[in-house]
């Protein structure tokens, strides 16, 4: 199955992502912020990234922007999973070439479908 990098500073969300994705047979790697996520990205080369937007150290948008500079992140599906809804943030997401935008709370079934669809 796929390797999913779950990035969120909230352990609860990471835990839920891990739970729902690993149940479907995916391998889940975690990171607590964008900086850690970059390291994990280089080390594990996941098939898809699901990242929070608001995080300490490096937020989700900056992470995606930087990841796109990396060889392993150029065409990687990277989803933002956030409670934010502001248009200017979505505009930023488009600029940094996020693959898509999902709102928390997430529906596990839909998330799995999306992961299948994008990988």
């Amino acid at each position, binding site marked *: 199955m796929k390797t999913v990098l779950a990035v969120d500073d909230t352990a*609860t969300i990471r835990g839920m992502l891990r*739970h729902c994705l690993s149940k479907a047979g995916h391998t889940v790697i975690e990171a607590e912020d964008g900086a850690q996520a970059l390291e994990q990205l280089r080390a594990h*080369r996941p098939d898809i990234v699901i990242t929070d937007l608001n995080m300490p150290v490096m937020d989700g948008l900056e992470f995606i922007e930087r990841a796109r500079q990396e060889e392993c992140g150029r065409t990687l599906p990277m989803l933002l999973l956030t409670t934010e809804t502001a248009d200017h943030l979505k505009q930023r997401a488009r600029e940094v*070439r996020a693959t898509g935008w999902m709102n928390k709370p997430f529906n596990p079934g839909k998330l799995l479908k*999306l992961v299948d669809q994008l990988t």
Partner: protein
Amino acid sequence: MMDDFDDFQAVFFQECEELLGDLQDHLESIADGDFDAETLNAAFRAVHSIKGGAGAFGFDHLVNFAHIFETVMDKLRSDELDANPTVTKVLLRSNDVIADLVADAQNGAPPRDNVERVRLELEALINPAAADAAPVADAGQAAASTPAPAAPETQASQTAPEVLAEPEEEAEPTRDVTIRIAPGPEFIHSGHDMVKLIRAFKSMGDVRVETEGELPPLSDHDAVTTQLVWTLTLNTAETISEIEEFYDFYAHTADFTITDSSVAEEAVSAEAEPAAPVQEETVAEQAQDVQEQAQEPLEASSATVVELNVSSEGQVALDEVKAAVAQADAAEKAEKAAAPKATEAPKKAAASNKAAKTLRVELNRVDRLVNMVGEIVITQAVLNQKISEVDLPPNNQVAQAIEQLSHQTRELQESVMAIRAQPVKSVFSRMPRVVRDLADQLGKEVTLELAGEHTEVDTTVIEELAEPLTHMLRNSMDHGLEMPDAREAAGKPRCGTVWLTAEHRGERVTITLEDDGAGINRDRVLAKAIEKGIVPEEAQLTPEEIDMLIFAPGFSTAAAVSNVSGRGVGMDVVKKKVQALGGRVSLQNNPGKGAKFVITLPLTLAVLDGMTIGIGDERFVLPLGSVVEALKISDDVMETLPSGSHILRYRDNYIPLLSVRDLLGLDPALERESLAVVVETETDGKISLLVDELIGQRQVVLKSLEANFKRIEGISGATILGDGRVALILDVPALHALGTGHNVSALRKAS
């Protein structure tokens, strides 16, 4: 799947506890004006994280409140709102409310009355004008208009059963819908993939795919930038808007044009027009919903073999694209495989190092460890004792090994103790809340000043501390601090102050609770004590003795029993609790100016560095940290006061001299003690004790006398010495109290 979420709920609440702690710290810094952008960000993130988790579990009240709280925090960090006292007051209240909501969510309790009130206060900060115009009556409406992130979740669970019922609706006629997809230049670089997209469309019905445009020769071909236009003919029962919703998720990187064959051409182009804004919209936010819809027909069509019916030149093009994609894919895979394992491994190690930052361990396990270490310390002492009894040549290897072992044992013990050490902050941080609640309730104005929150104390001590501390704080606020008007009349600021501080003093921790209130009214205390039969009517008590009466069981001076300071179970329970922790409470009363309670506690309940002393055949242990020096004494440095108590002249000062023998009722001495040990106490200054001999210093493991036998005044515990004898650990201030009768229980015995 929902059942397994219980585990995450537990994690969530655990996390909430930490987040709430952080939030409170940040908000207090903000209220104090001591903050920067990062403080605001951190506070925002804490609320945000609580909201995110709460939404996942469907705690709607919590989500709704957190949402508006978060909005206010967002305005603060974007400088749209100023952190003035009015605002910070609401923020602190909101902090209390959100903590309540978390607790209520955990217990399944309905939200409390104050939630709505504080929510409106928050709303007023966001939109002052609307708040003026919209009084409480609009509350429900306001709540409804608040975008509730939990809503999609609810919808999802509602639609779930419909999926099961779907087959009945399957008879719906299908028709061909044409979707033209023109990927933008960033399509692939945004992580999208046309093959996958087409595959996804197949979940809605049969798909035929055609391509427009020319492919360059394969040698010049760049699979990433070449922009072919794709036309999909989808045979589906889905409505246009459902399909639009589906591709909305991709719309920020590709242009979609949709044509419904069942509708007249003119009408369609009209319909395609309004679709344009949808395409222009930013990243699709309702991807989940799209997925939901996509899921339904998948069941119906998955069995169908979908053929890619393409025109001949399209076929070639597709093959080429496929080949190119495969090539790119293979290159990427190879690159992945080629990534040197050597660099990967240390990175993994680094990652796992990071994960090991903290570890949650059951306290029981640590306690077992502490007990075992305690036993090892005793065994070590036995070993040391035995080896000292054997006449070994100097530099004997066994002796050296044992010496080394004792160092290691000590280090082991310190490390184990460090595991249990925790800053008192976890208790102190609950107090501002107590003060705020109580100040509201009592109509008093109170500022709480905290200091030394980072002082570390044994976890077990901290847990036991919360209750007595809360009680004392309530007591100070209820009985100590005056009403604002009364304070003003007494020439004090209207707002009273309570100081709560913690600090290390030698082997002990001192926690001080001081207020600038009215102090203890001795006349009233004495009258009450006599009325309650705690002291006889004719008792002659010193002012300090009267003060100590508030610790007597069954004592309560509140004219009316208030639900604030309890029902007279107050201070004696505090005292008992502190004593059970091996600590003491003392009190300095300054009538009219305030009162100061001092709790001193041992750093740890398990091991003590002790000085072993001998009195007759008995062995006693004094906490080493408190021993100042030992003196040989002669008659001319000792004096007897008219009251019968003794004093010692010590460096031009007179200090109390206690006979442990007399105080504890040991066998009388054959000859008078020849030594005095001077001990420093936290509460009574220096005190000297008469002893027969000094045996030496050693680590001892504390065993509670109270748990194993019964409480004895003047003794704080017992231990087992290296030779197997039981030695009692002396509690010097308690002994002193025993000597002067400066103590309620001794007083009772006397009366």
